[in-house]
């Protein structure tokens, strides 16, 4: 097995709010292989976005290390030495495209912004041509180039955000709940786009979601987070077939199924579980679950 693209080891992040100390991420470890879509699932407040922000160097973790292509990005010296590579090869896609795109820039400017920052000579002649190409890539027409984000629909805006991220041909795309604020019918379009990017162009994703249904379709491996800890990591099929941790089971049964008779008769399991404890142990090959030692 080759070295993983992203290796998160014992990551811990703490928020201080006055005297209150909150362990948002508590001893989290996982690896992402090149070319896979890795899902990170949890409720709001489970720390999944914090993990994403640590991976993107927005937060500085309290403990642990994150290796990206072998570079320890938590180490300031290594980070500075590889700054340009880190800034281009990792890209972030936010949940709310309305606020992650500057409303006073046109779509063309937004998509070309990373190229402009890194003063990359556009291989297609001009930055505008480049932006046009990237938009085509994500399924948007030329007519969007001169529009402002407010003139686009939610799905189109998210595509623009994806196009911006893709323009640097990143090795890793971190998508922080990219479809949570979209309609179901639009969600499907964006999911297909992600899948297409992974299958045809080999992009690697860290895909964060609060909904297991979405992850099942998209991801090859899934980690379930609960109150700052990863409670289960497994290949998607295995996780759905044989969920081991009670929280994973609870999440699975929360997925609504489009069948009124089956759905009405299905009881809900209790969701208010105690705080997770224990260590990740391998239950089956590649299937880890948090268990008391």
């Amino acid at each position, binding site marked *: 097995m080759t070295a993983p693209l992203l290796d998160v080891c014992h990551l811990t992040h703490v928020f201080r709010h006055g005297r209150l100390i909150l362990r948002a991420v508590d001893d989290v470890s996982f690896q992402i292989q090149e070319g896979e879509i890795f899902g990170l699932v949890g409720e709001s407040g489970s720390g999944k976005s914090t993990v994403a922000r640590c991976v993107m160097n927005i937060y500085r973790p309290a403990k642990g290390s994150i290796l990206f292509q072998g570079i320890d990005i938590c180490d300031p010296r290594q980070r500075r030495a590889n700054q340009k590579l880190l800034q281009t090869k990792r890209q972030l896609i936010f949940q709310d495209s309305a606020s992650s795109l500057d409303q006073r820039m046109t779509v063309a400017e937004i998509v070309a912004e990373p190229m402009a920052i890194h003063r990359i000579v556009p291989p297609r002649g001009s930055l505008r041509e480049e932006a046009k190409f990237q938009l085509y890539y994500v399924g948007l027409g030329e007519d969007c180039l001169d529009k402002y984000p407010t003139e686009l629909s939610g799905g189109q805006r998210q595509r623009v955000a994806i196009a911006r991220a893709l323009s640097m041909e990143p090795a890793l795309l971190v998508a922080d709940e990219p479809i949570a604020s979209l309609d179901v019918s639009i969600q499907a379009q964006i999911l297909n786009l992600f899948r297409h990017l992974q299958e045809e162009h080999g992009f690697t994703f860290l895909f964060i979601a609060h909904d297991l249904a979405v992850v099942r379709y998209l991801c090859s491996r899934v980690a379930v987070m609960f109150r700052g800890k990863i409670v289960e990591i497994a290949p998607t099929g295995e996780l759905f077939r044989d969920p081991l941790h009670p929280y994973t089971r609870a999440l699975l049964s929360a997925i609504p199924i489009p*069948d009124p008779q089956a759905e009405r008769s299905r009881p809900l399991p209790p969701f208010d579980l105690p705080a997770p404890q224990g260590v990740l142990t391998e239950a089956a090959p590649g299937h880890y679950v948090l268990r008391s030692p």
Partner: protein
Amino acid sequence: MSALLDVQDLSVTFHSPHGLVEAVRGVSFSLQAGEVLAIVGESGCGKSVLCKSIMKLLPESAQIVGGRILLKGTDITGYTEREMRRLRGRAFSMLFQDPMTALAPTMTIGRQIGEAVLVHRPRLPRAALRRRVAELLDLVGLDPAAARLCPYALSGGMRQRSVLAVALASEPSLLFADEPTTALDVTIQAQVLDLLRAIQQKLGTATVLVSHDLAVVARAADRVAVMYAGKLVETGTAEEVFYDPRHPYTWGLLRALPARAREGEPLYTIPGMPPSLIDPPKGDAFACRNEYALAIDYEEMPPMFQITDTHFAATWLLDPRAPKIEPPVGRWSK
């Protein structure tokens, strides 16, 4: 017995800087006491405008331009603000999408619920009021001690429960729930849906449940109405709509659900985007996204075809002259 709510051919328009928006275009439906009707559609299809127009909660630029609203047989279409105020809270009430902003930030939960109780029972003594507030909090599954808290101290799910307590304060016979679970986590979402269902069974409150997600609706709805571009395109019992959908838009919505996807296959997506409701296309508004569209779809609006006593759909595919098409959605199976 007349229906609790009977909406006949309701049309609502908005004035916007870009033109006249036809948000609701001739919608008719009725609701029996104690029934749960789900209205499903993409954002911008007019589903929440429909609810707000019945409660007359729309801003001044919106206008009911046609149709009638009958509440227990009484025509309330032309009611003034003063008359509506007497109905709100008692006859019908509403839940909103974002529980974070729906509660007044500076008042305690208890006071906000108490206020809602007092609207229709102004002479209630203090002790009885306090009892009633505790009772309501208990009903929605909150600790009565929460009455002393302010909204900022509560989580999203708890806030939505408090909003529900406010809405139920005067025991309305009809509750509009406008995307009550969209802003919540999946686990909380299921709990809130069950709570709605339980309350509907306990108090007999009829509920209009608005959502963009068909899957969410399956658990709670007796009947389902699918809305597209300001019109209802298919209505029927939950079983009919989920097991025997007739409108191509309903097919699309069902097929796009990630829960339906089979591993390895791409998800189905409805092509294109909903049309602008400023000057909507003539004919069937869905035609331009419908791979089964007939020539007539671009010319003439389809009428509501009746399939069973309770099942209706507005598509020319149901016309006897139309070619027979095998619905692309089968029954969902695990």
